[in-house]
C-alpha cells in the first residue's frame, strides 16, 4: 500500500466514524432541537469530513459536504431553525456521503443534487449563496474563537454610592462565575475605621481573573448597567496559545509592573537584595501584601488553566489507538495456540515431577492466563454502537409504517466480543423490525385501547456470568398464543391435541416458514425471519427466550456468550476419545451404576434425588465400541429449562478450551460444534448440546 493509499484509508475510517457520530447527533437533535452543543457537534463532524476529504482528494465528498455544512453554519448562527425536514435531509445527506465513501468510483451525482436542492430550499432567502461564499473563512475564525479560552484580568472599582442605586456587586461577581473559571480578589484597604465609615457606601474594589471563551463583550455585558458608576479595565492576559511560553514563566514582579503597581526600577532595586520577591516588596513598602496576593492568585490561575489544558491533551492522545481488526484476530489465534502449548507444558511438567520445571510451568500458566484475559478484553466492544444504529432503524421504520415509537436503551456500555457484536446485528435488526411491524400498534389503535399513542421499545444489555443478556421489550400487542397454535396446526407442525406450555407455543414462531401476519409487508411477514434469527443466535452459542402478555407487550431475551474464541469446558472421556462440554451449561455430575441401568428397564432415565432425568448415551450416539466401565458418569446439563444427562465413561475436569473450527469437510456433522487441541496434542471434539438433545428427541418421536 502506498503512503497516499494509507492516508486515504485512514481518512475513510475516520469519516465512517464521523458519520456514525453525525447520525447519532442528528437523532438526538431531533429530540432537543435547541441543543447548541449537538449542533456544534454536527457542524464539526461535517467540517472535518469536508476538510480532510478535500485534503485526500475526495473532492466530490468535500463539495457535497460543504453545502450541508453551510446549512448547519446558519443553524449555528441562529439564522435557520432545526426542523424535522432539515434533519431528514441531513440524514439522507449523511447516507449519500457514506455511499460516496463506499463506492468512490461510482458517480451518482443526481441523488446528491436532489438532496442539495431540497436543502437549499430550506435556507432563508438568497442568503445561502452569500453564506456559502463566506462560510469557509467564517468557520475558520469562528471555530478558533470558540475553542479558544482567553484569560482576562478585570479591574473593577465601583463608585462608593452604588449601594444607594440598588446594585449588589456580589451578584455581578456571580454573573462572572457563570462565564468561566473565575478567581476573585477583593481589596479592602480603602475601608475606613468605624468612626469614619458610611455603612451604606461601597469601599471594596476587585481584581478578577477570568478564563472564558465568551469574549470581551460578554464580560462587558455583565457590567452594562453600572458602566457609568464604576471604573472598569479589562485586559487579556493570556490567549491560551501565543503567550504560552512567556506567560507560564512570568514572574510576579512582571505582573506587578504590568499592572502599574511597581515600576521596573523599584523592582530592580528590591531584586538586588535577593530575598523572596513578594516579601521584599512588602517590606520595602512599595506595594501592600494584598496586591502581591492578587498577583499570586493570577499566577496560580493561569498555571491551573494550563495544567487543565495539558491534561486534556494528554488524555486525547493516550485514549485510543487504531488497530486493524485482522491483526487482532491473528493475536487471538496466537494466544489460543499459546494456551494449548501451555497446557502441554503443564502436563509434561506434572509427569516429569521436576521441581524446577514445575515452577516454570506454573509461571507460564499464570502469564498465559493473564495474556489470554487481556487479549480477550481488547476484542471486547461496548454494544452501544450497535444500539445507536438501531435508533436510525426505528426512526425510519416507524415513519414508514405511520407509528410513533420511542426507543430507549440501557447498558450501552456492556461489552461483548467483537465477532459476536458483528454477527448480532442482523438478528437484532430482524427482531426490532418484528416488534415495530407486528408488535406495536398504530397510534389510533393504541389510543382506542387506552395506551399512550407513542409506543415504547426498550433495548437493554447486561452481564450475567459468562453470558450477556440482551432484551428487546415492546409494549405492543403481544403474542397471541391461540393464533400461533392454530397456525402451527394448520402447517402440520403440531397435532391439534398436542398439549403445549405457553413457552413452547411461543417458541414455535422460531420455526422456519412460520408467520402469523395476515399480510406481507416489505418489512416482515414472509416467515423467513425468525428461523434465521434462531439459527444466527444458535451459531453464536446463544439462546432466545420469549415471554409475552397479550395486549401488554413482548419481551425477547437473547442470551449470548461473552466470547467465541475460548470457552471454559468440561473435559470428558469415552473409550479413548475425548469430548468437551461447555461448562456454562453443566449443572452437576452423578454416577450411573449397572444397577441403576437395570432398574430403569431399558429406558434412558436416571433418578437424581427423586427427580427423573432423561439421558443420552454418547457412546451410542457416536458409535464408540469397547468395554463399559463399572460405573459410568452422567453429566447433567440445562437446556432450555430442561435437565438432560449425557452419559460418559469418565469426567476428567475443567479445561480451557480454545475453539478451533472443523474443516469444510466436517461442516455438516451434527452434534459437534468444533474441536480443541489438548495438552498432549490429541484432538477433543466440542459437543453441540442443543443439537444432540434435538437429535435424541427426534429419534424418540420416530420410535
Amino acid at each position, binding site marked *: 500500500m502506498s503512503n497516499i493509499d494509507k492516508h486515504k484509508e485512514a481518512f475513510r475510517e475516520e469519516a465512517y466514524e464521523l458519520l456514525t457520530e453525525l447520525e447519532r447527533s442528528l437523532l438526538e437533535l431531533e429530540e432537543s432541537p435547541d441543543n447548541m452543543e449537538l449542533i456544534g457537534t454536527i457542524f464539526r463532524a461535517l467540517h472535518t469530513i469536508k476538510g480532510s476529504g478535500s485534503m485526500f482528494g475526495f473532492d466530490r465528498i468535500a463539495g457535497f459536504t460543504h453545502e450541508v455544512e453551510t446549512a448547519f453554519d446558519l443553524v449555528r448562527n441562529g439564522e435557520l431553525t432545526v426542523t424535522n425536514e432539515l434533519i431528514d435531509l441531513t440524514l439522507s445527506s449523511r447516507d449519500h456521503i457514506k455511499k460516496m465513501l463506499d463506492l468512490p468510483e461510482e458517480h451518482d451525482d443526481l441523488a446528491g443534487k436532489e438532496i442539495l436542492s431540497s436543502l437549499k430550499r430550506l435556507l432563508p432567502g438568497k442568503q445561502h449563496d452569500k453564506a456559502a461564499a463566506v462560510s469557509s473563512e467564517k468557520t475558520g475564525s469562528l471555530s478558533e474563537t470558540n475553542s479558544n479560552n482567553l484569560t482576562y484580568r478585570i479591574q473593577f472599582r465601583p463608585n462608593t454610592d452604588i*449601594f*444607594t*442605586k*440598588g*446594585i*449588589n*456587586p*456580589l*451578584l*455581578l*461577581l*456571580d*454573573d462572572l462565575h457563570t462565564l468561566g473559571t473565575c*478567581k*476573585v*480578589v*477583593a481589596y*479592602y*484597604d480603602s*475601608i*475606613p*475605621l*468605624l*468612626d469614619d*465609615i458610611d*455603612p*451604606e457606601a*461601597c*469601599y*471594596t474594589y*476587585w481584581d*478578577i481573573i477570568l478564563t472564558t471563551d465568551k469574549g470581551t463583550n460578554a464580560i462587558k455585558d*455583565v457590567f*452594562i*448597567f*453600572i458602566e457609568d458608576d464604576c471604573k472598569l479595565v479589562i485586559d487579556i492576559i493570556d490567549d491560551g496559545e501565543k503567550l504560552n511560553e512567556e506567560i507560564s514563566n512570568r514572574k510576579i514582579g512582571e505582573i506587578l509592573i504590568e499592572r502599574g503597581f511597581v515600576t521596573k526600577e523599584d523592582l530592580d532595586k528590591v531584586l538586588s537584595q535577593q530575598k523572596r520577591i513578594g516579601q521584599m516588596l512588602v517590606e520595602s513598602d512599595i506595594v*501592600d*501584601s*494584598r496586591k502581591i*496576593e492578587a498577583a499570586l492568585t493570577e499566577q496560580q490561575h493561569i498555571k491551573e488553566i494550563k495544567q487543565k489544558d495539558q491534561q486534556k491533551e494528554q488524555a486525547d492522545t493516550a485514549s485510543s489507538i487504531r488497530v486493524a481488526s485482522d491483526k487482532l484476530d491473528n493475536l487471538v489465534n496466537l494466544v489460543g495456540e499459546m494456551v494449548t502449548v501451555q497446557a502441554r507444558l503443564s502436563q509434561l511438567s506434572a509427569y516429569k515431577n521436576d521441581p524446577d520445571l514445575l515452577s516454570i510451568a506454573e509461571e507460564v500458566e499464570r502469564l498465559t492466563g493473564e495474556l489470554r484475559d487481556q487479549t480477550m478484553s481488547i476484542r471486547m466492544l461496548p454494544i452501544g454502537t450497535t444500539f445507536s444504529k438501531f435508533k436510525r432503524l426505528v426512526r425510519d421504520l416507524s415513519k414508514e409504517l405511520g407509528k410513533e415509537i420511542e426507543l430507549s436503551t440501557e447498558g450501552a456500555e456492556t461489552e461483548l466480543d467483537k465477532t459476536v457484536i458483528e454477527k448480532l446485528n442482523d438478528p437484532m435488526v430482524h427482531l426490532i423490525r418484528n416488534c415495530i411491524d407486528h408488535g406495536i400498534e398504530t397510534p389510533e389503535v393504541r389510543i382506542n385501547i387506552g395506551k399512550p399513542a407513542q409506543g415504547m421499545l426498550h433495548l437493554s444489555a447486561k452481564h450475567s456470568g459468562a453470558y450477556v443478556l440482551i432484551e428487546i421489550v415492546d409494549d405492543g400487542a403481544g403474542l397471541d398464543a391461540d393464533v400461533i397454535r392454530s397456525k402451527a396446526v394448520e402447517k402440520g407442525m403440531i397435532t391439534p391435541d398436542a398439549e403445549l406450555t405457553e413457552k413452547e407455543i411461543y417458541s414455535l414462531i422460531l420455526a422456519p416458514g412460520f408467520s402469523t401476519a395476515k399480510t406481507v409487508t416489505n418489512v416482515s411477514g414472509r416467515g423467513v425471519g425468525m428461523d434465521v434469527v434462531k439459527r444466527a443466535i444458535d451459531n453464536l452459542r446463544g439462546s432466545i427466550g420469549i415471554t409475552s402478555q397479550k395486549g401488554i407487550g413482548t419481551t425477547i431475551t437473547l442470551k449470548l456468550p461473552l466470547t467465541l474464541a475460548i470457552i471454559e469446558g468440561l473435559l470428558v472421556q469415552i473409550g479413548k476419545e475425548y469430548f468437551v462440554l461447555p461448562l456454562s451449561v453443566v449443572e452437576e455430575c452423578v454416577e450411573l451404576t449397572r444397577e441403576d441401568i437395570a432398574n430403569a428397564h431399558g429406558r434412558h432415565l436416571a433418578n437424581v434425588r427423586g427427580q427423573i432425568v432423561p439421558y443420552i448415551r454418547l457412546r451410542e450416539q457416536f458409535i464408540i465400541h469397547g468395554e463399559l466401565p463399572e460405573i459410568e458418569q452422567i453429566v447433567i446439563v440445562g437446556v432450555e429449562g430442561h435437565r438432560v444427562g449425557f452419559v460418559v465413561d469418565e469426567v476428567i475436569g475443567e479445561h480451557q478450551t480454545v475453539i478451533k473450527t472443523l474443516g469444510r469437510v466436517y461442516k455438516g456433522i451434527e452434534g459437534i460444534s468444533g474441536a480443541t487441541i489438548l495438552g498432549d496434542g490429541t484432538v477433543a471434539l466440542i459437543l453441540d448440546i442443543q443439537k444432540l438433545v434435538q437429535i435424541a428427541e427426534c429419534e424418540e418421536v420416530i420410535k
Partner: protein
Amino acid sequence: MTRKGGFQTRPYKETRDNMADIKAEKKGKEHLIVINGGLTIEYAAELKNALQQSLKTGERVVLDLSNVTEMDLSGLQLLCSAHKTSVNLKKTLELMQNTGEVFKETVRKAGYKRYTGCTKETEKSCLWIIGN
C-alpha cells in the same frame, strides 16, 4: 437573587418589619454580639452602632455569626472596618469559631479570603485569613 445586571429584587431600604436581631451581651470587659437573620445593607447602620458601642466600652468583642441568614458586601465591609478599628484601639475583635455557612459563602463570593493580614498588626487576627 441572580438577576442579570446585579439589581436587587427589592427596593433599597425596605420597611423594617423583619429586623435583623442584633444583641449585645456584656460580661465585664468582654462583649458578645449575636446577630440573627439578615446582615444586609438595611441593617448596616444598626450594626455599625452596635460595633462602635462595644468597641468603645469593651476590651474584647466576639461576634457570633452562626445564625446569619443573609449577608452582603456592606456587612463584610463593616466587619473589616471594625477589625481595623479594634487594632487601632489595641483591643480585640474576634469571630466565634462556628461562623455559619452564609458568612463563609459571602466571603468566598466577594473574594475577601486572604493568606496574611493587611498590616503587621493584623497578621494573626485578620478576619479573612483562610482557616480563621
